[in-house]
């Protein structure tokens, strides 16, 4: 009899989690669902990045990230590969840490702490978004000279093309291309590296004058890069940026709710934990976006 009772209680103990009345995962419902949402979102991002990898492996040539991402705000044409994106990466890491501290303050029912750390997280998110805005603006409007169809032209990185192809070493080819380049393109080419004249002044010059101002040998002229590069870059970093943006909005809502004592009255700050999970996920995705676009 006593043996029977022991086995029963052992059995009971083993199936304890699933016998009802408690969460088998020891987590509140909303948090479990946030985890599953994040897992599905990981597959969405994963699919995008794997698609990028698949296209990249199908090409003989792919742009070198150190060539594409070498600008820094206020540094002009200085060649600083990966400098700005490291700043962006550290902003996200630090904002992730401040979010951990906000969640921890919530555990301790420390309303002031939650408000303080949530505010810093929001500041970090906004800083990241501002950096991305600058980066995109620079890539789209920063024009580089490319050799295409026997002519030269100045283009930025868009969905329709990018200037990140192979370096053209053949100077005879480039000189011929320069001579075949029409007036409008010449104006843009000179303007892309010489800011001492305005576009209007350059437009008034003759083609011969403009060609005299272009030195094809030391301009590092490239071909157009693989067309998919722009779309993948803007698509994936844009999708991530949209996550950052929605994370900032969620954090602002959490901040307002905290200030209005919603969680204090509810008796727990679980909502902050769920917002925190989302925010950390945004940082997690950046690890892989950073890896696929900037590092390898």
């Amino acid at each position, binding site marked *: 009899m006593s043996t029977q009772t022991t086995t029963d209680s052992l059995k009971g103990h083993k199936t304890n989690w699933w016998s009802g009345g*408690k969460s088998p995962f020891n987590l*509140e419902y909303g948090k479990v669902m946030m985890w599953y949402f994040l897992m599905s979102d990981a597959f969405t991002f994963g699919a995008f990045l794997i698609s990028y990898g698949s296209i990249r*492996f199908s090409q003989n040539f792919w742009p070198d*990230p150190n060539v594409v991402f070498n600008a820094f705000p206020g540094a002009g044409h200085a060649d600083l590969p990966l400098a700005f994106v490291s700043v962006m990466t550290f902003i996200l890491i630090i904002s992730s840490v401040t979010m951990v501290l906000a969640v921890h303050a919530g555990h301790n029912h420390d309303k002031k702490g939650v408000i303080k750390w949530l505010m810093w997280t929001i500041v970090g998110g906004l800083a990241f978004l501002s950096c991305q805005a600058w980066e995109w603006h620079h890539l789209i409007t920063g024009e580089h000279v490319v050799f295409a169809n026997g002519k030269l032209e100045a283009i930025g990185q868009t969905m329709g093309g990018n200037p990140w192809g192979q370096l053209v070493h053949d100077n005879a080819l480039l000189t011929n291309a320069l001579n075949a380049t029409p007036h409008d393109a010449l104006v843009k080419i000179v303007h892309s590296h010489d800011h001492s004249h305005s576009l209007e002044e350059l437009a008034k010059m003759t083609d011969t004058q403009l060609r005299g101002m272009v030195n094809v040998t030391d301009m590092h002229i490239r071909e157009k890069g693989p067309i998919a590069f722009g779309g993948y870059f803007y698509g994936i970093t844009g999708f991530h940026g949209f996550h950052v943006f929605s994370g900032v909005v969620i954090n602002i809502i959490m901040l307002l709710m905290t200030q209005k004592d919603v969680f204090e009255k509810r008796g727990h700050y679980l909502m902050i934990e769920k917002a925190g999970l989302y925010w950390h996920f945004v940082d997690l995705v950046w690890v*892989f976006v950073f*890896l696929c676009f900037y590092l390898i």
Partner: protein
Amino acid sequence: MQHPAFEEVTFHPKHEDEKTFKQKVIKTTIILSIITVIELGLGLLMHFLHMPDDFKRLMIKGIVVILSLAKAFYIVAVFMHLGDEIRNMIMTIVVPLMLFIWFIIGFIADGNSYKNLRNKYDKHFKESTNPHKYEQKANTHQIKPGGKN
């Protein structure tokens, strides 16, 4: 720390004190920062040493991928507290993610096979995208005047 609003959560295995929590956060932040710096260093190393697209470069890229996975582990396990959840919960998240092993290998291999097929059957693709085409031309230009002299 039993909250009245979520009685379904019954099990509170360990209660961290302030000091261990702070140490854990600081330690993780430093680990993440150091890994990022190493990754950047390796990325710049490949650039400034003008490493060719060979096996050595591929190895460095492999190291960077592994370092990124380590970063992901620390973010998920410590910042997202998945490491503190019970095993069943961890498994429902981690096991489905195993799909990525097939997902990555399968699609990368597919892209690679497409490249090989095109290089074999599409001569224009092969010639117009060959990464060394200008280097070869540049070399022939250098040799020609030398030959005349």
